């Protein structure tokens, strides 16, 4: 494996991280945000394994009847193994929250969801303001500014 190939790996993993983070920022759809998050995570894992790679080394598994030679670093591999499984758990939880959010607000679009959420908060706050003296004064102007 040449030096050039290792830099190709580096470019791939950094590209995955950049695409993933860019997707998390750019997308307005919750489902797509979850997908972009998993891509960024794959890039980070690839980077960690790449750091543990060693020239002219074999996989860190001893095969009976084969002479012991150098092996690649096994610590990053063990960490990445943990990270991938946790990432799947995070993805499942994020999808469940997205399902819940869509059930509550009827949309997956972040912009529409934020507007409905603020309307909800305002309705509750407005209902309370009749009974309470400590109603937030600025909440209604915030909504009108957003809508304008």
């Amino acid at each position, binding site marked *: 494996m040449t030096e*050039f190939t290792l830099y190709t790996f580096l470019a791939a993993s950094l590209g995955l991280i950049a695409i993933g983070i860019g997707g998390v920022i750019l997308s307005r759809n919750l489902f797509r945000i979850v997908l972009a998050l998993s891509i960024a995570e794959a890039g980070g894992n690839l980077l960690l*394994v790449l750091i543990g790679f060693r020239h002219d080394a074999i*996989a860190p598994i001893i095969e009976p009847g084969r002479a012991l030679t150098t092996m690649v670093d096994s610590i990053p591999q063990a960490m990445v*193994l943990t990270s991938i499984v946790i990432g799947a758990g995070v993805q499942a939880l994020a999808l469940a929250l997205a399902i819940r959010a869509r059930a509550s607000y009827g949309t997956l679009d972040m912009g529409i969801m934020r507007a409905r959420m603020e309307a909800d908060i305002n309705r509750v706050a407005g209902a309370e303001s009749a009974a309470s003296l400590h109603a937030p004064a600025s909440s209604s102007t915030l909504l009108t500014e957003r809508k304008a």
Partner: protein
Amino acid sequence: MSWADLIVLLMVVLVLATAFATLFLRNLLGAAVATTLVSLAVSVFYVILRAPDVALTEAAVGAGLSGLLLALAAKRLGLWHIEVQEAGLDERGDDPC
């Protein structure tokens, strides 16, 4: 340049193309399919980097578990329904930005 390097280049093209496809495909189910392709290429990367354990985990989680998870979630979110109706609904779910 050995042929392993050529496979690396091939997989880099695959991984970057599918990662961009995840962001820019209008249809969200297609984007979900694209992420399973990303984990496919990453799994081949791990084998080239002499990490069969990690490659096995990525293959199992990325291809199997993530595919099942995304499919079931897409069913509950009604994503295919949105594509069939071609917008016109309240959800603007297909807009990438």
